[in-house]
Structure formats: C-alpha cells, structure tokens
C-alpha cells in the first residue's frame, strides 16, 4: 500500500442524543441512552408491537441549525438528518468551500421510506386488485418526501450540490454495513490518490409504520416489554433483538498532507478497511462468525497491524441473539494468539443510541476515533448478565479509561455483508 496517511478532521452526528457529536460523546461517557417510548405516526392507541426506539428529538435542535435548508427541502426524513450531519462535519473540519471542489461524497442510505398513504393510492376504486395503474391518475397526491418522489441517492447529491463537490458522488447500499463501507471506500479512494478529501457516512430512519412493521414481522426488531426503555442489551443473556434508532453521521477524511497544509488537527487516523461476505443465510449470520472474522482480519492486514496491537473493538453488538454470539466467536478467532481477546476492550454503542441501520457505522466510527483521541472507552449499557457464550470484556455499565492506540469498528449488514474499519491514535510520525 502507499505511504499516504488518511485522517479524520471533521465529524457530524445527528442521533437521539441531539445534533452535535460533542453531546453524543458526553452522554455516552455518562452511560446514558436515548431509547424512549415510541409509536409510529398514525398509531394513536399504543397497539404497535414495537414500543421503544431512539428517535431524533427535534426539540433539541439548536438555534444555529434551525434555518438549515434540510428542514424545508422536499426530502425523506433520513436525508434531512444526513444533510445536517454532513454540514456539521464540514463545519467541524474547517474546510473552506474552495477546498471542497474536488471532494468526494460517499453516502449510505437505507431502504427507501415507502409511505403507506402513497401505497393506498394504488387501490382500485371498484374493489379490484391494487396496482400501479390506479396510482398514476392520482400522481398529484403522492407525497413529496416519500420514496416515490425521492431517489435513494438523493442525499448524496444534495450534499454534493450544497457544498459544490465535483469529485465522485457515490451512493452506497450494503444494509447495516453501509456507512462503514462509505468511510472505508473513501479511505481507499484517498489512499489511491483519486481524491484528497472525502465526506463519508450515512443516514437512515426506519421509524415509520411500514418499515418497522416489516422488521417486526421478520423477527429482527424487539417487541420485548420486560425492561422498558432498557431493552437494548448487547451481549446480555436477556437480549431480544434490535432497537432502532435514527439519524445520520458523516466524517471528513483527508490525506494527512492535505490536512496539515491547511493547519487542521486530526481526531484520529484511519489505517485500514476490510469487508467480507458470509455467504451463509440471508436471515442469519454465519454461526461461528466466519464472515465477521474475515472482515476484521482483512482490516488488520490492510492496516499492517498485528492482532496483538488492537486495544479496542467497537462491536456491531446489535442485541440480537444470533449476532452477539457470532461476533464474540469471531473476535475470539481473530485474536486467539496469546488469548489477546482477554486483553481487549469491547464496547457496543447500540444500547445507547439505537441501531441506525445503514448509518450505524458512522457514529460508531466517530466514537472509536474519540476513544483513540481521549483514551476513553464508552460503556456497553444495559449489560447486566452476560450470555454464557459472550465472555469478553464488554466494558459493561460505565466508561473505561485505558490507552487506545489502535481499534477496530465493526459493522455487519443484513444478509452477511461485513465490514471492519481499523483506526489509530493520530501521531505526527508513524511508529
């Protein structure tokens, strides 16, 4: 690989915690979470079986962001969050508009936000079977901010148009690995010399009736009632499924040379990226974590790191029965030499801000970068009784102060699409 070094110089996150990464980080270190009671719009009687989610709380919108065009453009909800997060990241980086002209934009978007109201326009007036032909005469009634009006790549283009970016504009879709793939691909594009600057991340919201119903019926979303708002419990024996969040996250990546030339201070260095396919079952991870292990090993190889150098793994940690065991087994296989897995800190973020689905890898990458910067590891909250097959140090309950020189951030997508990012503490000189 080339000697080009790539660093993170800007971050923006919109989550249930708020609209700044600083708030996210502070709340996470304080072992808080933002899972709350939730019901889809239009369900007023509390009968929707999924009762909890980490929704974005618009009452937390700071005054400085209230005039952002994302709130008035015709956009899907996820794109509004993503556009704001990307703006925050660029502002955080200090890049001037003229420095963004050749930048790439890589954006992971989740499944389209289909709207039940739009779909009901396909109903035949005389009771015949529904079909698209019945919608066309009523096209004027189709919602402007639903999937029939908004292409999946709309967010990537809105960001590029708004910032005047003329580099590659790439829309990524690899389920829950999407944002991690976006960041990994951006890292590779800079390393290859295709661009010097990239804005990469993702945005998603599944908090609508249609998508959550589909996730519930699939058995992926938890409808557990026992634990109230504390039901997201990665690696706990009582975990019961994913708890959805919503929001967006973007990072600004630059070649170190580019960053230093303009006086930027890196948060952390991106060292490697690995991806793999389970090729097992569309509905379940490979039980031994084969694909996850391949992705982590590929990230280590890409970074030129030995397994023993890793201090922290930001786990995918979905709180689903199958993922958390498979990920644990994968970690144990990759870090088997000298039982290094016993020395690792493993932290899962989804019990704090929910599962952001396609966007999940972006805030989790930021948290990993901040761990490298500050030598602080965020806790896995709501983890009280370890699953007997989950026997690593998951930093349960409270943040941990420990040196973090190198870390991995895992994101594993539905259907067995796996990614892992290798990050490191930024140093002026490589070791």
């Amino acid at each position, binding site marked *: 690989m080339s000697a080009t070094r790539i660093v993170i110089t800007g971050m923006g996150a919109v989550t249930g915690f708020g609209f700044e990464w600083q708030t996210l980080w502070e709340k996470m270190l304080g072992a808080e979470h933002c899972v709350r009671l939730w019901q889809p719009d239009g369900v007023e009687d509390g009968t929707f079986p999924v009762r909890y989610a980490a929704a974005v709380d618009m009452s937390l919108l700071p005054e400085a962001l209230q005039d952002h065009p994302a709130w008035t453009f015709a956009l899907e909800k996820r794109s509004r969050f993503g556009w704001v997060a990307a703006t925050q990241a660029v502002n955080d980086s200090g890049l001037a508009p003229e420095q963004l002209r050749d930048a790439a934009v890589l954006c992971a978007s989740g499944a389209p936000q289909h709207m039940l109201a739009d779909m009901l326009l396909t109903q035949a007036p005389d009771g015949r079977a529904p079909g698209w032909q019945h919608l066309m005469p009523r096209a004027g009634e189709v919602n402007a901010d639903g999937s029939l009006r908004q292409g999946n790549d709309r967010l990537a283009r809105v960001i590029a148009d708004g910032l005047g970016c003329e580099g590659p504009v*790439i829309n990524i879709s690899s389920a829950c690995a999407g944002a991690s793939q976006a960041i990994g691909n951006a890292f590779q594009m800079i390393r290859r010399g295709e661009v010097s600057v990239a804005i990469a991340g993702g945005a998603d919201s599944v908090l609508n009736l249609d998508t959550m119903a589909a996730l519930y019926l699939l058995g992926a979303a938890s409808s557990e009632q026992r634990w109230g708002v504390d039901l997201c419990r990665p690696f706990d024996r009582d975990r019961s499924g994913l708890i959805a969040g919503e929001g967006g996250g973007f990072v600004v990546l630059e070649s170190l040379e580019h960053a230093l030339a303009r006086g930027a201070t890196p948060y952390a260095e991106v060292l490697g990226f690995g991806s793999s396919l389970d*090729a097992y079952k569309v509905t379940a991870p490979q039980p031994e974590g084969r694909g996850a292990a391949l992705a982590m090993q590929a990230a280590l190889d890409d970074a030129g790191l030995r397994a023993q150098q890793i201090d922290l793994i930001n786990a995918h940690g979905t709180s689903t029965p199958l993922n958390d065991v498979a990920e644990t087994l994968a970690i144990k296989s990759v870090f088997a030499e000298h039982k290094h897995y016993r020395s690792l800190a493993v932290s899962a973020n989804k019990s704090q801000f929910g599962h952001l689905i396609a966007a999940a890898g972006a805030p989790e990458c930021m948290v990993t970068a901040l761990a490298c910067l500050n030598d602080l590891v965020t806790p896995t909250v709501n983890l009280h009784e370890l699953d007997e097959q989950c026997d690593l140090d998951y930093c349960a309950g409270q943040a941990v102060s420990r040196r973090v020189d190198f870390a991995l951030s895992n994101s594993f997508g539905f259907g067995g699409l796996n990614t892992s990012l290798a990050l490191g503490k930024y140093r002026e000189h490589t070791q």
Partner: protein
Amino acid sequence: MSIAVYIHSAAVLNAAGSECADLLGTPPSSQPLAFDATRRAYPLPTPRLASDLFDRKIQRSVEPQGLRLLHCVARLAPALAALNLPPARIALTAAIPEVDAPSPCWDAVQAIGEQPQKPLAQLLANTPPLHALTLLNSSVMAYVAEALQCHGPMGGFCSQDNAGLDALIEACQQIVEQRADAALVVSSSPNLTPALYLRDPHQASEAMYGEGAAALLLGLVPAPDTPITLRIAGFARGYSADPQRGAAVGRGVIDRALSVEKLRLGDVGQIVANPEDAQLMSLIADHPRDVRSARAMTGDLGASALLTEIALALHHTHTASATPGYTLLVSHSRAGHWGALLLASETMEEHT
C-alpha cells in the same frame, strides 16, 4: 494499473435478448407501460431461476429486478467455478437500485382497502414474515454470495445512474490491491414503476427506460482460448449538477481515464456513449468516429447500462473482425454524474 485486470466473462438480460450477440440484432419495439399507456418502455418478463443453483423460495420472494440479476449471475457460475479459487479470494460488488415496490405487499394494501378502519391489524396480518427481504438489495447480494460461494470483499452501490461504474471500479481495485483474485460485478435496472417517472417528471418525460441486468466476471486472467482479450485500462468519475460546470467536469473525467495509458482522445478507436446526450457529444465532437451505444436495443438500463455495454465490448473481441485497440465508455447521468472507462483490446501476444 500495476496489475492487469481482465473482463473474463459476461452475461446480460434485456429486451434484445439474453445473449450479447442479441444486442447487435434488430431493435425490439418499445411497448406501452402497463400502468401508463401514454408512456413507452422496454419491459421484460420475469425470468425463471435455475433451481440447481438457487433455492426455490427465492423465485417467490425476490422482486423482478433481483431475479433478472440472479438469472445473469447463474450463467457466470461455470466460468467462476472453472477458476477454482478459494471463496475468500472472490469479491462481489453490486449495483442494484432499491426496490420501489410497496413496502406493505399488495395483499396488505388490498386488505387495508377493504377494512380501512383497521390498517395496522390488516398490515400485520397480510404481510408475509419475510417480506422485508424483498425490499433490501443486500438480500440479492446475499443470494449471489451464497449460491456462488463468494466470501471475499464486497461493495454495494445503489443509484439509477452511476452505480454500475462504482461497482466496477471497486471490484477492479480489489483485484489490483490483491485482496481478491476474481470479482463478480452484478447489476440490475430498476423495475418499471411510477417512481421512475415521478422523481424527476421533467427529465422522465424524455426517458425511454428498459428493464435488464448484466453481470461481469473480472479476473487476473482472461477467459481461455480468447485470441483478443479485454483489459480494464483506466477509469475516472466526477459530478456536477451545475450546467455551467458540467462540461469541464466531464472533460476532466475523460482526460483522467485516458491518462493512465498516456492516451489522448484521438488515440481511442471506439467510443461508447449516449448519442442523444448533447453535452457529452460536445466533448468528443473534435474527434469524429464511430460512437456506438446499445441503448436503442435496450432502453435506458440505469445501473446496469454500463455493464451491458462492457458485455457487448467483450462480445466484439470474440468476433472474427476483432482488432486490438482502445474503447472508451463515457457516461453522463441526468443527475450530473460523469464516468469514463477505458478498455484495451489486446492480442494474447501483447501480454504474454
């Protein structure tokens, strides 16, 4: 590029047919859309999947765009198997538009229409448990990976316009950077649904969409017994939605793709581009030559258009009249994406 990457094999499915040679035949007639007789397009019947490669349930649970893709992929399975590679050395990248089908399935929509006072109960009672799988293009990638045993690097891309080039570049780089020895690049056009026409009504009024799919197998070696091979020689991409900047960005993209082999536009033997794109054509106007496109045979195939053109270029290398030289494929999306891909046709002697 430091390591040569070849287009080993290709498979297509579109209105012209399921063989690359079909793209050289008589153009098929466009047809009125089933949901809007005032518009015409190139729709396809949903293909049947080979049951020896894919689970029978997939035929029922995957949307037509995914089935088209899987139909193409199945035809590359023998070529991939013949390479005899470890699964971890096989990459998979995909350019698949997200499905525009109703999130609640049609049965649920009908049930809600019959009992509108209980929409939630009808939605939950009439949506199959696995319906979510039909909406995710990662499901289609998973089916490909499972059937063809690809465990290596992956990349999923999703847009109507430029995802094919993004998927091809990513696959090529996985081989160049030695993370894979072969890569499947798979793509599909979206289903013909109202969304194609509602998202940008002004531009869609001129569009003639088609349904199709295309898949490529890339490798470190060309297919055996091919006197002329097709190598990926360069590529570049950019974007501008600003009409004032578009030409400059497009010109820069073309120049960068050519620069890898130290070429100028005049050195290229053939250009593949949409002849109806005035801005694109203005960039190559100083170098008049045969500009070809399969678009008249297929309609606008969106995410699978580029791979279909590459498949045709590969087919040309198999014909008796094939000669060495360069082909430049230039794409310009309605949204403003620019892409350029340089392919080198070479005799075996040139690289042995």
